[in-house]
């Protein structure tokens, strides 16, 4: 028998596969297609202090082996999230990670505090790296700001805190160390890469926001490198994110040093992609008679 269980700081998960923020709604929409209780965890769409209408359409466009998006953190705001979404999410037997974003250090602390008072939340993921809103990237591009926002959030809650970093930086290990310094229990690596596409007929950007975040298989090699480098730089657990379409992709991230993975764009292609990854991991462990996924974590051979 094998074990898929993993540990993200104080948080234990029965398996290391979570859904990525903004790609699984609040769970509701996919309930009919996906048995949520099988997930290692569910990370919900970013919640902000105040409701956000989001960006004007068009918000997405397909690119080679990827897609651009600039949703603009459309969400109902923390108040209504707690009142309307949380009760629904709570009923499922799945660890719930609430992803939050703010425009100031105080915002993040406020959101962390507000969520601490609630039942049924497994952890908080700090989205300090959304490329599609003003100030969105500021935090995750500056080590000092990153440490500050993480430490304030940490101080405002008893819940485990994950910091979700941006890959759009010169040296992500500097940001990773700062987040570790700030007390993050784990790092979510990575958010999207900033890109754009142009409609050559209209000569306009294909996305109203002009630029958007690139996700999907196209970025997998870049995300994997970010995880590998951070694994050499910090001691806290890493959550690998970026272009994971199947179990083999996920295994690359474990070998590079990730203790868990998140499935994003793949869910658009196959609603139950996360469950397929879990099944695939089980088969892989059995086939290669590895007893625990932990044996894979950071097992890359570079000698």
């Amino acid at each position, binding site marked *: 028998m094998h074990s898929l269980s993993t540990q993200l700081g104080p948080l234990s998960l029965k398996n290391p596969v979570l859904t990525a923020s903004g790609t699984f709604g609040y769970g509701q*929409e996919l309930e009919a*297609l996906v048995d949520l209780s099988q997930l290692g965890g569910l990370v919900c769409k970013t919640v902000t202090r105040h*409701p956000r*209408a989001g960006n004007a359409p068009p918000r997405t466009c397909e690119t080679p082996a990827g897609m651009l998006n600039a*949703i603009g953190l*459309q969400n109902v705001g923390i108040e209504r999230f707690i009142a309307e979404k949380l009760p629904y999410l709570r009923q499922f037997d799945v660890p719930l990670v609430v992803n939050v974003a703010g425009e100031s250090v105080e915002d993040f602390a406020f959101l962390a505090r507000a969520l601490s008072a609630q039942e049924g939340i497994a952890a908080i993921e700090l989205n300090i790296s959304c490329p599609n809103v003003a100030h969105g990237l500021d935090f995750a591009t500056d080590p000092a700001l990153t440490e500050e926002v993480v430490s304030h959030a940490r101080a405002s809650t008893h819940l485990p805190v994950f910091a979700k970093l941006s890959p759009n930086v010169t040296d992500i290990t500097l940001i990773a160390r700062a987040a570790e310094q700030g007390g993050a229990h784990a790092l979510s690596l990575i958010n999207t890469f900033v890109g754009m596409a142009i409609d050559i007929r209209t000569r306009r950007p294909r996305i109203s926001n002009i630029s958007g975040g690139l996700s999907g298989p196209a970025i997998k090699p870049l995300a994997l490198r970010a995880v590998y480098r951070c694994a050499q730089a910090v001691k806290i657990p890493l959550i690998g994110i970026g272009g994971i379409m199947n179990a083999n992709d996920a295994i690359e991230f474990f070998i590079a040093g990730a203790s868990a993975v998140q499935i994003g764009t793949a869910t*658009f292609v196959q*609603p139950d992609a996360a469950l397929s990854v879990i099944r695939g991991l089980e088969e892989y462990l059995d086939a290669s008679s590895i007893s625990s996924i932990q044996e894979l974590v950071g097992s890359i051979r570079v000698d």
Partner: protein
Amino acid sequence: MQNLKTEIIYHQEISPAHFRLRARSAEIAHSARAGQFVHILPRAVNFSFDPLLRRAFSIAALQDDTFDVVYRVEGRGTALLSRHQKGDTIDVLGPLGVPFAPPVTKNILVGGGVGVPPLAMLAAQHEGDSTRRMTALVGARSRDYLVCVDDLERSGLDVRVATDDGSVGVQGRVTELLEPMLADLAPDAERPLVYSCGPLVMLRAVAKMCQTYRVPCQVSLEESMPCGVGVCNGCVVPLLNAADDYGAYRRICVDGPVMWSHEIAW
């Protein structure tokens, strides 16, 4: 809504670059309603991720345990779909979205290009219902872009066609066929219900016209749809005076594709 592996039992080019695809799925055939769509994943081989995402197609017709879509080859996704052969299995998610509202006593179907298929299904579902009369107005660039006219006629509808080049029907825009029908309505006459699906420019014109003549109008909208099931918030359309979960925006995939035109901030 289910995620199904369905077998293609018919796939033919019905006019240049236009295809009719029929696949077996009792689930869809028994539950789908006119205006709903399917999200199809075109794949050449496993682990090939370009094109990456599913493609949305209105359901054009239903039979005992099969459904049809009629599509035009636009880019690589539809090009790849058109390569699939009879007997191949395709990955289909559906039926998805909000269907058309029930017809009233007088109904006018206004379709353009590959927007006609869902209207053809609406007509078929009410075939022979003498209490709900339907007229179809179809617009297209030219003869080659006309699809599903025969389906409409088979359902007993009186179909009027307008083409940009006059190769079929009158030369001009489909709205030129609609205007007189609305203009002739006595102010106090019972209002017909207009159903419209087609290019955005056409939908806008139809919506405007219906507003002018105070005629209710349902439109079926299109937008790039990464997920098709409401989780990505990518496919939105702004609504007039709406402000709830989704602010002023609605997701076309789950709150549409069919909407009341007077609700939309055109």
